[in-house]
């Protein structure tokens, strides 16, 4: 069974169709990278998966369960949306850390709030909370931030902030972790530390969708790449194939532009 199945997603903003008939599947443990020129709809696609936008048509299935169906009014205006979006995690281009909390608190907050809804919460409060605490410490350690746990976001570099944001997303153990240009807001010398962390996640078979303008990274880390153009999937396949022998004219043009810049 596919961990993710996206069927015919369409999204309009007013009269402009930003996503047209987007369909693809993902397997557990796969790292998928999405490339495409500015305005091709990559962010919108991730936002649809995370229920920050409502598609006008199409279905989203995770592990065979239909989470969203534009044709089914019940699944469209679902009050359980909050639980469903937990299948996905999203790392934003601009981090969106909570400024009033330390790095550690940022990682723990959502888990603590969700734990309150567990039926056994009252009886096992201290165990549940220390579990969350231990997990947050471990995640920050993985991100190389053990010595920054007590720092507030304004005291951290962009690269450190983004790694905290990644830990925060991982803390909820999403089935599929989405990255929206995780290094685009960073100074060039800081992109490496974030890309390294994502690469480590890929090595451990974390299921991920990575929207990126870092072509070398997409080619080396992803198991599969999707090239989007004007709201459509123009070409997809093995990264080596797509990057070295693109079939579509648009893909060739896009990649040629990048080679010139590099």
């Amino acid at each position, binding site marked *: 069974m596919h961990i993710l199945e996206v069927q015919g997603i369409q999204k309009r903003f007013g009269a402009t169709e930003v996503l047209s008939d987007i369909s693809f599947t993902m397997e557990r443990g796969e790292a998928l990278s999405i490339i495409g020129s500015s305005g091709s709809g990559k962010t919108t696609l991730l936002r649809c998966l*995370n*229920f*920050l936008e409502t598609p006008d048509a199409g279905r989203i299935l995770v592990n065979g369960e239909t989470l969203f169906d534009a044709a089914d009014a019940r699944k469209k205006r679902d009050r359980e949306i*909050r*639980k469903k*979006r*937990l299948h*996905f*995690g*999203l790392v*934003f281009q*601009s981090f*969106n*850390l*909570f*400024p*009033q*909390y330390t790095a550690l608190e940022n990682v723990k*907050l*959502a888990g603590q*709030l*969700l734990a309150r809804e567990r039926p056994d919460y009252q009886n096992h409060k201290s165990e549940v909370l220390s579990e969350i605490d231990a997990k947050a410490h471990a995640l920050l350690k993985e991100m190389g931030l053990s010595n920054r746990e007590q720092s*507030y*976001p*304004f005291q951290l570099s962009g690269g450190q902030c983004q790694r905290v944001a990644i830990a*925060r*997303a991982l803390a*909820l153990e999403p089935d599929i972790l989405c990255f929206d240009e995780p290094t685009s807001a960073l100074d060039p010398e800081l992109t490496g530390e974030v890309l390294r962390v994502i690469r480590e996640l890929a090595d451990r078979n974390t299921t991920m969708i990575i929207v990126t303008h870092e072509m070398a990274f997409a080619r080396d880390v992803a198991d599969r790449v999707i090239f989007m153009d004007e709201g459509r999937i123009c070409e997809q396949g093995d990264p080596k194939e797509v990057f070295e022998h693109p079939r579509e004219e648009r893909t060739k043009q896009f990649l040629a532009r990048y080679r010139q810049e590099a």
Partner: protein
Amino acid sequence: MTGEQIKIVFDALNLGFLQTLRLFFVTLIGAVPLGLLVMLGRMSRVKPLSLLMRALIWIIRGSPLVIQLLIIYYVPGIAFNWHPWGGGESGRFAAASVAFIINYACYFSEIFRGGIQSIPRGQEEAGLVLGMTKRQIFFKVKLLPMFKAVLPPMSNEIITLVKDTSLSRIIALQEIIWAGQAFLKGTRGISGNVLPLFFTGVYYLAFNGLLTILLSRLEKKLDYFR
């Protein structure tokens, strides 16, 4: 002034200042929640409500508080033969409180609106993606940064409010300036003495000094994040 006169003067000034303080605190306690409601109305998607609130804010901020005091105190009786305020000092205090609460609620509402708009959209989205409820996002994510953002402009308004309370003299509320001025006009064997009136200024300075210290301490407390 003799010692006895000094006592008379300060007793009167203290009494007046008590009324000043009462108006100050009642306004603050009333105008904050009303300001939140006005802000919600102003930001509502219900067009007529939002337009109504904009008009109210425009009228209240665009006209002198003194005139609003006079209208609220006198117009019900003159125009409708309706006397909601009752007589005496308690009636004047009630009218002054209503005028001040409405006036300051309109100023506060605009400050609150600025506070809400100062929170980037990404904060809410990050909360949503992390499975938080709207309520949790408001209380755990947005509230403190919002409070931090509104604190400096609120401090300004609060200091201004202390001084604005003296405007209620226009409907003869017996606040501290009214009390000091009485010795200029003549009361209890003292007349033509301007010193008590000058001295009211010291009361204002002392109280505003205290408020400034407290408010900047609060601001310092929130300095730990940006």
